């Protein structure tokens, strides 16, 4: 999880080395934009910037094999989640997941997500997903880092241990 700005987080998974390299490159460039222009990139702009960079490298000798989720809060547009894959496809989505865990959790998100969830309901929905992973996923993932982004910025939530049931 990489903090691009006060209200934007970038989650990056994929090939070892590529992930950190690419994410830090994006992180520093977003900071540079703020320094040069005096104001931050919006989440939509940051997402498109990231996608453009990924696409430019795709047909070079050194493509980055990373899957990304970019989450941010915009003053005018509200919260936004952007799903990006290693072929630099970009889609704005109400919920998203990457990796094998996605096979198990996407249907739960489909089933219980509503656009007007409260914070507690949203955390409960996340817990449901983690319980399912704990039950059916072949790898043991003992704990998860959870962060929340709202109008006041990024907040760390308590580490969710997945040991119940």
């Amino acid at each position, binding site marked *: 999880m990489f903090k691009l700005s006060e209200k934007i987080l970038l989650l990056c998974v994929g090939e070892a080395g590529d992930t950190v390299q690419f994410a830090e490159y994006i992180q520093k460039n977003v900071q540079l934009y703020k320094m040069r222009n005096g104001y931050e990139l919006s989440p939509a702009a940051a997402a498109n910037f990231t996608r453009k960079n990924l696409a430019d490298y795709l047909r070079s000798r050194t493509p980055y094999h990373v899957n990304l989720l970019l989450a941010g809060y915009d003053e005018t547009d509200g919260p936004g989640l952007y799903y990006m894959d290693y072929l630099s496809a970009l889609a704005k989505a*109400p919920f998203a997941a990457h990796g094998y865990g996605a*096979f*198990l*959790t*996407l*249907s*739960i998100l*489909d*089933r*219980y997500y*509503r*656009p007007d969830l409260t914070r507690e309901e949203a955390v409960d929905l996340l817990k*449901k997903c983690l*319980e*399912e992973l704990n*039950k*059916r996923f072949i790898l043991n993932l003992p704990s998860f880092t959870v962060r929340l982004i709202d109008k006041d910025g990024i907040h760390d939530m308590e580490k969710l241990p997945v040991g119940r049931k």
Partner: protein
Amino acid sequence: MALLDVSGYKYNSASQFGFKQTLLDRSNHYSFGTKCQEFAVPVGVDPSKFLKSCSCEDGVCIDLNHGTTTLAFKFRHGVIVAVDSRASAGKYIASKEANKVIEINPYLLGTMSGSAADCQYWERLLAKECRLYKLRNKQRISVSAASKLLSNMMLGYRGMGLSMGSMICGWDKQGPGLYYVDDNGTRLSGRMFSTGCGNSYAYGVVDSGYREDMTVEEAYELGRRGIAHATHRDAYSGGVVNLYHMQEDGWIKVCKEDVSELIHRYKKGMF
């Protein structure tokens, strides 16, 4: 006579043309007319190698029908069985209303996932064996025995490229029964199974919504939801949900609903 059967000893030495089949087809019933105890395989052909040559690496590309989602779970009032109805051959949808549940008899159901041909053939053969059992023993076959028959059939042809993942559901003297049988010869008894390439999506929905003490209507809805959400995410599942309920006095077919209509109903306001 069992030893005689197994050893394949032919005491009928005068084997003329139109040979007399003195031995009943007791153990050889699926050896397709071979005279001695063996599994019928084409001579000189290695099925697994043949199938490998049909997968896309070597030029010729035959996509076996694999895509599906089926699920079944036990609860207080019996067993719910729900399946989708899409038959895909690679990227092509061969049928949108395929029947993936075989009604073996009024108290036994079998689901099909994997290769359509394998499933249909072997489960129909299972139906024949169950009927023969009832005729010979004057009582119904148990779910455990039926599933064991199927898994033994699979074990006989292990490594030869069969592809079948099936759930045998029924109600017998021991109560509701649910067994998962697949082409490796795996046979598992359990409370809930889902098979096919959409199975992970179905597990997500059914695991999160399952309670042992659900009412019958809630269980129907859970089964419908599981298939609907799986078909929504999995490209190789779709069509309609065929929903069955296995009760003490036999199964009933509950409904047959189009998944796109279900999804539109569930996601009203989201589109």
